């Protein structure tokens, strides 16, 4: 019964995540950019822009320059999460890829790195007056959700221990649309439930920053307005203005 509920939950969550993000990204990609509004100094070539975005995505370059504390916590959290997620691949692949195996030892520690990052971010949100001012309940809850996911996961890794083999065969089954046995461990069920929730709210929340940042004209445009004319579709269709100076122009 619970295995079925979770199976449906994960199918729905995956569908909403993929379709939701896909639709949003489609919308971003097809919305016109009327003007060249790159924030300069900016690269003058496409190659330069790719490098700039690479540095932003991998190192959070702008954030590093603007706020070291947020940067440290952001890096701990995001890099911790990335490695934790990669480590999770072992639950979905058979045989486990060799590099996922390599990640196993540090992957387990990364949970603490991720937690430290999240706690740091939350502490700033609570104690730093300016950030508290700009926070809505959803901003706090998002951190609580991630903390709960990471916390319940860490509990399973280090304290209660779940039947990982059974979980893995359950998920491998879901890939083949077969619903197997899911261990009825409350911490596992919490962990999985919250992950599904995260997947569902992803496309309708600020988590869209991940795909969104690739569509921010301020960073992704090439600084070449003088060399190459930038013009959007709707601007092309504006009524033409007269060439030459109209005769009866009063001073």
């Amino acid at each position, binding site marked *: 019964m619970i295995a079925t509920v979770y199976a449906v939950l994960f199918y729905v969550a995956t569908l909403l995540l993929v379709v939701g993000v896909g639709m*949003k990204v489609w*919308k*971003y990609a097809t*919305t*016109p*950019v*009327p*003007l*060249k*509004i790159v*924030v*300069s*100094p*900016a*690269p003058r070539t496409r190659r*330069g822009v790719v490098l700039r975005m690479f540095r*932003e995505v991998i190192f959070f370059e*702008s*954030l590093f*320059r*603007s*706020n070291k504390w*947020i940067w440290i916590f*952001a890096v701990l959290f995001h890099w911790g999460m990335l490695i934790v997620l990669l480590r999770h691949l072992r639950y979905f692949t058979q045989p486990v890829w060799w590099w996922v195996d390599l990640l196993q030892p540090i992957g387990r520690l990364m949970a603490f790195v991720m937690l430290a990052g999240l706690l740091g971010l939350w502490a*700033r949100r609570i104690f*730093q*007056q*300016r*950030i508290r*001012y*700009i926070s*809505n*309940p*959803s*901003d706090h809850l998002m951190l609580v959700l991630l903390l709960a996911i990471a916390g319940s996961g860490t509990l399973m890794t280090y304290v209660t221990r779940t039947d990982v083999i059974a979980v893995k065969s359950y998920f491998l089954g879901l890939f083949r649309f077969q619903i197997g046995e899911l261990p009825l461990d409350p911490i596992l069920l919490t962990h999985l439930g919250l992950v599904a929730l995260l997947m569902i709210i992803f496309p*309708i929340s*600020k988590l869209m*920053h991940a795909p*969104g*940042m690739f*569509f*921010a*004209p*301020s*960073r992704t445009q090439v*600084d070449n*307005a*003088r060399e190459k*004319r930038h*013009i*959007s579709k*709707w*601007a092309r269709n*504006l009524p033409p*203005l007269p*060439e*030459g100076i109209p005769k009866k*122009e*009063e*001073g």
Partner: protein
Amino acid sequence: MASLDMNAEGGPKFVGDPLKIPAIECGAMMDTNTFAAAPEHNEPLGFPGELLDNWQEVAIAKMGELAANNRAFKVYLDTCVKCGACTDKCHYFLGTGDPKNMPVARQDLLRSVYRRYYTFAGKYFPWLVGARDLTKDVLDEWYTYYHQCSQCRRCAVACPYGIDTAEISMAAREILDSVGVGQKYCNEIIAKLKKTGNNLGLNPKALAATLEDLEEDLEDETGIAVKIPLDVKGADILLITPSADFFAEPHIDGLLGYAKVFHSAGVSWTISSYASEAANFGMFIGSYENMREVSWRIRQAAKDLGVKRIVFGECGHAWRVAYSFLNTLAGPFDFLDQNYPIPQHILEFTLDEIESGNLKIDKSRNDEFVMTYHDSCNVARGSAMGRKEGGQFDVPRAVIKAVCNNFYDMERDTIRENTFCCGGGGGLLTDDLMDLRIKGAKPRMTALQQVSEDHGVTHMAAICAICKTQFSKVMPKFGYEMDNVMSVHQLVANAVILDGQETEAETATAEETP
């Protein structure tokens, strides 16, 4: 050196650190409002004269239209994670402590409404994501705080996603205009430009007379007939410069500098009375159509006069519109000489002349000044110069250093891409916002005071008409004289020696030897 009596004329108290973050003071600036436009200011721009009866409906529809037509607007509203990195970056927040002047909070004034009407979370769980209905109070709040943003983009540099509050401000002003709530200063000026070709409402006759006077001044000073041509058909270069260059100080001295450089370079050039304005306030109100109309005059003038090149004078936001938008708005410029950048900045022109040795320069003529340079925010973050990334920082400095012996930069976090706005940009250069302008200038002024103390800097050069006017107004509040701000081409004008010009030194020797 300037006196450091910070309490002069009731100005803000001296603080040593230009980046000092104030404690939050809610509502500190909520009563600072700029004058509203009258119907005769709004209507020529294509906006309703007064607040519409169904303003709420129209505003919400306009917001949807913007989200559909402008990717930046949509993506910026969606992607902010409220990380807070931008919260201490705005000079108006640093100067006022009003939390609604923190960039992300400024965005949120609009984002909260956008969420309410256009997002799932805001429609069904408004309390969760801070979504709110669009009420008259909200509209008023927009008017107040979107006119406390100079659209300088300092926050955009800080944001991990490049979210640019200036874009949101422009959009907000466009929504306000679309329901009949315009700002007098901007809209009146745009209406004036549409009628006369410049922001001042100067007609061609008056302009011609002014330029003749300036030619006389130049001849008195140098003994050489340097021309400032107007409406000369067939000239090579059309100079587009802010109209402030025709009458305000220290702007005029910059114009004289351009004239000397053009004269020494031996090029033929002209100003146009039809497009006698570089500034384009259409940008400040976020109106593509108005910005296009204003820009279009430049194309018309260039065609009519049959010029080969377009060069822009010193003006910050004008250069942003020119560099980044002109090709979009009024291009393609296939009828101009493609061997030169279109458009070109006067500093690019001057630096080329300096580097190719065409100018005779006596740097010591600027020895009375110890200079620093204010990177105008629109040039720094909204445009570029030269061929290399960051040229907008290096070209002006190269020119200053070529004509002047004493130069020191201000603190790194207050210059180049991190430069502070002068406090009067983005359509806020109006007397009814003087309080805001003084407070917003504080970070820049504090950085200036630092270099004054450390290196004895006496003067600050700028390349923006608005910056120059703003500084000459607010510097006295910070212990400087109004003429402590200079045009970069004023320094050039001082140092350039024209062919055949008798310098004081030569005159002196000539008198001594019998």
